[in-house]
């Protein structure tokens, strides 16, 4: 028995058959139930876990149709339009769904109807019923008002005027109904009867292309999965060729026999359709995920979907067939590394217009895009003047400037004589600077402009190592003494 808190009292929110046999009911107070049967077992409701379970089931239902939507806290909509023939007709499909859920230990009610509203009513009030087109009215007429998916208040007021079934509401004149009970009632009614379209919004975007293979014998070995991916990708290739596209995002869905679904997605740097390359990428991905994927009793359905596609430009090979596309090689290399080690495994620097050294270069995950598109022309006046002598910059920059201890400087504004960094003392033999770099005032307004101003020095120590130090803040201000930081090293 599951309890939940409603108002100030713990109430029963769900109960099993044995509890029902004890004449316990939903919404009964826990105190009352305990008084009747002191030995009942009560579990606190966990809506989050219920939600996760329902989403897991929705994932699993993906094997029947890509259009799966959640319905409240306890229902699923499956838009099976055009899918039923794959499972041997509507009845066979419904039986298959019911049977498989039963195998997994769920007590399900299913209904199949031309409209979501009618299917909802069929599932909840008739059980295991298939409604053909045109029969919605006959289905709904004897059902109670709850089958119309209307708010409890509307239902109560309808009942108070004597309209106790959906049939009675349908028979009543529409205009007074709309005036008295609002437009929602008629909307629901029309939706259920198919007079108005109702869209089921799927949880996941529908893949433009996907191929799948049902397996009589579940597979467990990674090698088998990889081979299947190769086969599926070969099928996918003809579809992609027909559309003149290549895959940019691919997803591999592995449906385990006991209902768990593994979803493995990967992106490619440039549109791809070669089955061998796709297989190679999934090889890396699967190798990386080896610990995370639990094959259990095996997978009985493997699906490969193209989530995003882009135009695939064919390259003309020369007659010797020796043309090599370095860009393609690098893109494939980056894809493989990323498939194995994650998105951030291959990085590229991008110059950013900023005078702050740490902001002047952005490190972004590798992508082909900036190489191909030319940046839009900016007006002349915005462009920074090209300097003949670019400022000296270190070749390595610390992620975060490291504080150093500077006991003394020759002049208040001058370079340090020696400093302590990482517990070692360095003697400064030569120094260049300062180069003053102020904060970006347009980005954030510092409390005190002087406090965030940095004076950079190039320093050479006694052994010839060259460093980039800075002093943050100025002497003689009102604030605390300036602090010194190590920011980078020179060659």
């Amino acid at each position, binding site marked *: 028995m599951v309890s939940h808190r409603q108002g100030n009292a713990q109430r029963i929110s769900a109960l099993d058959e044995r509890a029902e046999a004890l004449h316990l009911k939903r919404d009964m107070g826990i105190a009352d139930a305990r008084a009747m049967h002191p030995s009942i077992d009560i579990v606190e409701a966990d809506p989050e876990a219920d939600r996760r379970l329902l989403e897991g089931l929705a994932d699993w239902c993906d094997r029947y149709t890509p259009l799966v939507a959640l319905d409240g806290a306890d229902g699923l909509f499956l838009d099976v339009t055009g899918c039923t023939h794959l499972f041997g007709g509507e009845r066979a499909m419904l039986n298959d769904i019911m049977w498989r859920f039963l195998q997994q230990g769920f007590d399900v009610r299913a209904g199949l109807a031309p409209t979501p509203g009618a299917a909802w009513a069929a599932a909840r009030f008739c059980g295991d019923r298939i409604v053909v087109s045109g029969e919605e009215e006959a289905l709904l007429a004897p059902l109670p008002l709850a089958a119309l998916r209307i708010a409890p208040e509307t239902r109560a007021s309808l009942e108070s005027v004597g309209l106790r079934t959906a049939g009675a509401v349908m028979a009543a004149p529409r205009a007074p109904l709309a005036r008295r009970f609002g437009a929602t009632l008629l909307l629901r009614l029309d939706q259920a009867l198919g007079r108005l379209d109702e869209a089921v919004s799927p949880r996941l975007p529908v893949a433009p292309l996907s191929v799948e293979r049902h397996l009589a014998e579940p597979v467990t070995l990674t090698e088998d999965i990889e081979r299947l991916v190769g086969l599926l990708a070969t099928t996918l290739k003809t579809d992609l060729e027909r559309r003149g596209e290549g895959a940019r995002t691919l997803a591999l869905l592995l449906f385990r026999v006991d209902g768990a679904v593994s979803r493995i997605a990967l992106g490619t740097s440039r549109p791809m359709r070669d089955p061998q390359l796709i297989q190679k990428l999934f090889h890396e991905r699967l190798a990386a995920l080896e610990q995370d994927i639990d094959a259990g009793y095996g997978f009985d359905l493997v699906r490969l979907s193209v989530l995003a596609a882009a135009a695939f430009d064919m390259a003309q090979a020369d007659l010797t067939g020796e043309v090599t596309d370095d860009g393609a090689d690098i893109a494939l290399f980056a894809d493989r590394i990323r498939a194995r080690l994650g998105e951030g495994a291959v990085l590229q620097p991008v110059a950013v217009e900023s005078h702050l050294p740490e902001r002047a270069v952005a490190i972004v995950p590798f992508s082909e895009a900036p190489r191909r598109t030319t940046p839009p022309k900016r007006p002349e006046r915005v462009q920074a003047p090209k300097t003949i002598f670019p400022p*000296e910059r270190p070749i*390595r920059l610390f992620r975060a400037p490291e504080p150093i201890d500077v006991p003394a400087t020759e002049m208040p504004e001058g370079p340090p004589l020696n400093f302590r960094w990482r517990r070692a003392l360095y003697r400064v033999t*030569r120094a*260049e600077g300062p180069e003053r770099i102020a904060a970006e005032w347009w980005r954030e307004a510092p409390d005190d402009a002087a406090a965030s101003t940095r004076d950079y020095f190039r320093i050479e120590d006694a052994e010839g190592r*060259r460093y980039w130090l800075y002093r943050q803040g100025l002497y003689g201000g009102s604030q605390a003494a300036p602090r010194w930081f190590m920011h980078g090293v020179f060659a």
Partner: protein
Amino acid sequence: MAISAVARETVFALRRQIAKIEGTLPERLQAPAGAPLDADADADLTIVRRGLAAALPDAFLPIGVEPLDAALSGGLPKAALSEIHGLETRDAGAVAGFALSLASLILKQAQGLPVLWIGTTEIFREAGFPYARGLQVSFGVEPRQLLFSEAPKLVDALWVAEEAARMTALAAVILEIRGNPQRLDLTATRRLHARAQSAGRPVFLLRQAAEPEPTAAPVRLIVSPAPAVPRETVAGPLAGSIGRPAFTISIGKSRTALPGQFTLEWNPDERVFDERRGEEGRTDRAKNPVPVVSLSGGRKDPAAASGAVLAFPALGAAISPATGGQPPSGQRPAHLSPRRAG
């Protein structure tokens, strides 16, 4: 006098074998078409073995400093794993700088190809992440020519390096590792080396704070920073200023060279190495700074203007075979003297 086809075939087979032992590219070994293959073939082979790079101009990356190139038998092998060691982590700037200057030399030949820099998270945290602006200023490596790969674990970094080493679409691969991890053993380096050989691209193994240990790399250079000379201005060296990057290179391992030590200076403007003259060369500069500064500063071979230098190519040729791998510091600055005189 002509040689029979069989004998020529034998010579080629031998050369190929030698090339395999040497770890150079066998396909580069074909004799230039029409080159007379006569009795000098044996001498040629000797040259290959001693490695003066006369026969294989393309298999080595000349560093551009004659004594070091001679000591390394023509430069660093292009299609191989080369180890570049730093003694301490704080030398990372010099070690990375030297590797990048080599990469910059390679990029002069392989235009447009990117350089991949692989490192573990540890080394990037300890020694700093490569800063693209600085690389552009000092080594002429454009940001779009750079790719980085950061792996939290050494195994992953090694895997990336192995995958990258067999790519011909990368100009060079830099793998940066700290210390002496057990995984980076003879087998791992042999795999890297073999892949680099078959792809014909260099792989630089940067090892910070590492002890030398047996690896498959044919060359190991130990880099430490050297104090830079002051900046040179029209009025002479600017006291207290920090000039071009300088490195002290010692050959830790090489099949041809004796251990030696060289001080190199990187010229960021022309992207070439200059050799730092010995102590007396520097005192020369101090004594008589004006001509030396303007001549040695910007260019590698500034002697063209002066008529007195005509005799010197012959002298240089006479000296260099005799010196072999070691640069006698007394003889190197010899060509400066006529300039002082003139």
